[in-house]
């Protein structure tokens, strides 16, 4: 798998993502710069976490207009695979590669804690390492992670199996109204969504921070194993 990681000014989880991709795929990803006007041949483009352009406008809004985003939109239109994590997810919604928006957390505070995620659709290159209904632990760290989407958009996401991950209890129970289980107040406890063709995925939590056994846990490994096995090049 040949992966590229996009660096915007203010991106800060590119090293975490590079380390996760290197550990799980055995090859280092290529770092891409926000001003690049062409993409190399890649199997996967990753938009990592951070505070692109300081998130001083809406989170991800400035980055969505970077030169490289034109290339990424074209890449996605050609059926390319794109993963956006945290600020990357925010950028993907701002760039309209994914539906919905990420609002300020319901409690109005930055939340950096572990959460549990339930895999809702295992038939994607991002999730095939899990079984449907599997629960895994992941760190989350964001101020604007409260996912929202129009009623019509929500019906489509749910109806078309495009909810990738939901916040849940350790036993898989989901309750959108319970802030201990759905910490940022996301609609239907949605933590990650997919594009219509299932090839663009965005999620708020950080599975890339749980792939290294030396750091104590490997709950995030199946996501990267899914990608590596699906995108053999």
């Amino acid at each position, binding site marked *: 798998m040949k992966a590229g990681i996009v660096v915007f000014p203010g991106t800060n989880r590119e*090293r*975490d993502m590079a380390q996760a991709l290197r550990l799980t795929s055995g090859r280092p990803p290529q770092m891409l710069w926000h001003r690049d006007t062409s993409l190399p041949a890649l199997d996967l483009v990753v938009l990592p976490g*951070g505070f692109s352009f300081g998130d001083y406008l809406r989170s991800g809004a400035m980055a969505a207009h970077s030169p490289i985003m034109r290339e990424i939109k074209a890449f996605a239109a050609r059926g390319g695979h794109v993963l956006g994590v945290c600020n990357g997810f925010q950028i993907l919604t701002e760039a309209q590669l994914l539906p919905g928006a990420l609002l300020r957390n319901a*409690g109005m505070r*930055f939340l*950096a804690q572990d959460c549990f995620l339930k895999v809702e659709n295992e038939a994607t290159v991002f999730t095939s390492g899990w079984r449907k209904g599997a629960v895994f632990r992941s760190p989350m*760290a964001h101020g604007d992670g409260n996912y929202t989407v129009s009623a019509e958009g929500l019906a489509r996401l749910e109806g078309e199996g495009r909810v990738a991950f939901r916040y849940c209890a350790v036993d898989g129970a989901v309750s959108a109204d319970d802030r201990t289980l759905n910490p940022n107040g996301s609609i239907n406890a949605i933590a990650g969504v997919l594009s219509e063709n299932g090839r663009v995925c965005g999620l708020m939590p*950080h599975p890339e921070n749980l792939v290294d056994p030396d750091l104590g846990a490997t709950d995030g490994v199946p996501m990267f194993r899914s990608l590596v096995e699906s995108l053999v090049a």
Partner: protein
Amino acid sequence: MSMTVDAALAERFGLTGGEYDKILAVMGRTPTLTELGIFSVMWSEHCSYKSSRIHLRNLPTKAPWVIHGPGENAGVVDIGDGLAAVFKMESHNHPSFIEPYQGAATGVGGILRDVFTMGARPVANLNALRFGDPKAPGTRHIVDGVVRGIGGYGNCVGVPTVGGEVNFHKAFDGNPLVNAMTVGIAPKDRIFLSAAAGVGNPVVYVGSRTGRDGIHGATMSSSEFDEQAASKRPTVQVGDPFTEKLLIEACLELMATDAIVAIQDMGAAGLTSSSVEMAGKGGVGIELVLDDVPQRETGMTAYEMMLSESQERMLMVLRPERTEAARAIFEKWDLDFAVIGHLTDTGRITVTHKGVVEADIPLAPLADDAPLYDRPRLVAEPPARLGWVPDPEGIGNALLHLLACPDLASRAWVWNQYDSDVGGQTVRGPGTADAAIVRVPGTRRGLALTTDCTPRYCQADPHAGARQAVAEAWRNITATGATPLAITDNLNFGNPEKPEIMGQFAEVVKGMAEACKALDFPVVSGNVSLYNETKLPSGLRVSILPTPAIGGLGVIDDVTKAVGYGMPEDCDLVLVGELRGDLGQSLWLREVAGREEGAPPIVDLVAEKRNGDFVRAQILAGNVLACHDLSDGGLLVAVAEMLIASGVGCELVQPRYDSPPYHAHYFAEEQACYIVATKDGAAMTEVAEAAHVPIRRLGRGGGDVLSFWGGLKISVSRLREAHESFFPGFMGN
């Protein structure tokens, strides 16, 4: 106000009559306004350490692993593999009272710059926070702002906040302490220093533009607060973590080349202190042309530019032929880059603006003639040891009471606003081990990091309290399996012009020096914050508790060998160390018996070293499943913290015949003690006894209940509920 330069204006700038006379002698004429401004900040307590220098000389600062001790932007120690850890702690107390969010945020930003200025990528932040009584009006607002500010800056800049401490006491009502620590990693042969060299070399300004913010901030932090403190809000700077992030990346990119001769961040006293220190240390002269300084506001004067404390700015001396390559790097990161002067051979700082020479000062006297005071000291008699105290409420109630008190309650509400994982190297974050463990990228090696101080001990007996603060930092690092290497310190005190405060200061430095020597734990960097007092509306001036916050750094060769304190299933529990049963100055005494009295616990540095070395060796040999030192709250609180961390219970055996009375046994804040969970307690006891290390059996881990030999049982979930109730109740959501 009138800006005519005379003794009265000098006094308004914080200079004494004697100091102003010295300036007249150095200059041989009346200084210009800009010159007076430069003298006033360079000779402020904050920049000159004029009250503390004479004592700080007594701290041990050397060890074979120390590469740079105090005097540089941060301390540098060798951590193996050709790498160095660069670290320092610094206060932002006064700004955080006036404007909690920006005060705390810019405190984090400032300490980050001290570290990456030296060529190190910041890999961890910690912070030691002291707030007023939770019941006092205003405390909640300050806690909220400070925590948001630390998170807002650290999270955005992408440096994990991995540890620290939070205390409450009414003595901090009008003067909270915000001490921020940053740790970075650099190749040990690529450390950048601030001494300028090369006459004619360009002086380059990079980063944010200069505005009128923070003018005289260094002077403000060198005076007491009064009821008008809020009117000083304009002297608090505003932080921009996004620009800081760009500055980190751009500086580290430039540092990978050979362009930089010297570099210094613009911290307190901004352009003044950076240019004076760079040229002064290098023994050269410096000429600045302020017309070329990137400015955010129009019509700024030389005085304003020289004293501005606008954030996220650096000053560099470059090799001339590399200037354009350097400019390209900063332009790539959308940062201002301006040549604002050059080095000279005059030994003077010359500042011109609009063709007028606004300042022309000889550098040597500016540094060498800085005031140095041996202020009068009054050392209080240490309090008598506490005698027998009856137990008013029994063991179980007292435990629940203590777990829920502000000084012991879970800090999850705080940590959960700090990103502790970014960077992908955090092995142990907040609330899981006695010290945070951060892996060194590209290796299996880890840094163990902690901040420690028990201000109530230092108030009761500054000398003993300082020994305890250093010992506890050493112990917390040891309890993870790491080897303690060095400390940074942040010495927070009241008004040094009062003999009793200067007495506290001198005794603290003496106590620290003893502990640092005995534990081979030198001081490599630090910061002194004085005048932490508040004038109440009644006119009374209240001093803070003396707080020498210690930031400790250790190293462990393999992070997978490090242990946390979560209670494992199915283990033997032993206690390493001696129990004395002295409840003086304990949280039990304050929270349960309602008294703040007695002497703090005795710190036996020989026992400290012996017990710690034993525990560390056992951890590294793989014999330890979990380890937690005894500190605030004593033995039973430490046990409860282990249970809460993992959800596993334990069964305690009856204390040995020679133990203190039960409440003293369980709640005295014993020193040099560790609770160790091991597979085979008998085997560990044998090894300990052979080495003459005191050890005793405590019980067994397992189940989900804390049960005592006499039948008392408390479920771990009840302990957790008590522990987690305070912060959400205090702060809401």
